[in-house]
């Protein structure tokens, strides 16, 4: 059932544990702020996973030094590029979620989504 590489891939293992924690927070926490923190944890966990994937033992960051351009010298640059793009996306999404939270609070004075929907039901709107 469990494959051979669990302990070699300890970085990825930590990343998916964080992903699970973040995902559950985003899905199941009642407080909106904590949901948003969960979202951020989930996103950074994915980026940690990618960064681990790009890493190659004993090689250095992909910035050309002294004209050395052998493949054996540098780590894989692709995941870094993807993560840079991803971080921007997660910042934008966080800002949107936080502004939605502010508006929601101004309207209903609470951060609990279930409470709000129950209130809506009671008001019969």
């Amino acid at each position, binding site marked *: 059932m469990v494959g051979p590489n669990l302990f070699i891939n*300890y970085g990825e293992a930590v990343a998916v544990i964080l992903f699970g924690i973040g995902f*559950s927070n985003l899905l199941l926490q009642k407080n909106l702020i*904590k949901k948003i923190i969960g979202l*951020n944890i989930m996103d*950074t966990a994915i980026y940690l996973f990618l960064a681990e994937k790009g890493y190659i033992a*004993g090689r250095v*960051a992909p910035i050309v030094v002294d004209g050395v351009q052998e493949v054996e010298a540098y780590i894989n640059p692709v995941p870094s590029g993807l993560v840079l793009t991803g971080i921007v996306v997660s910042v934008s999404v966080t800002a949107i979620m*936080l502004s939605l939270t502010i508006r929601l609070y101004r309207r209903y004075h609470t951060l609990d989504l279930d409470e709000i929907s129950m209130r809506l039901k009671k008001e019969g709107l």
Partner: protein
Amino acid sequence: MRGIMQIFTCILMGFLVICAISVTFSKKLLNSILIFMSYSLVMSIIWMLLESPDLAITEAAVGAGVTSVLFFVTLKKIHAMVGEDNDERKEE
């Protein structure tokens, strides 16, 4: 040398997991956000160790900087920091 670095990485990763769990269970929102800030900083150190300085600098500027500031403003707007304010006023 590499062995020491590996142990260091392991400790940092353990710290990440602890941070994530304590965010989930902490009662005060302000505490969760502070913990999340330290989570971001540790994450950027780990990325430095993984030879991705581009990511580390971005995460330090964004995750620990701007995002946290936005969180704080939101907390202020939703009066979640009200408890602390009241305490201060009493002391005065």
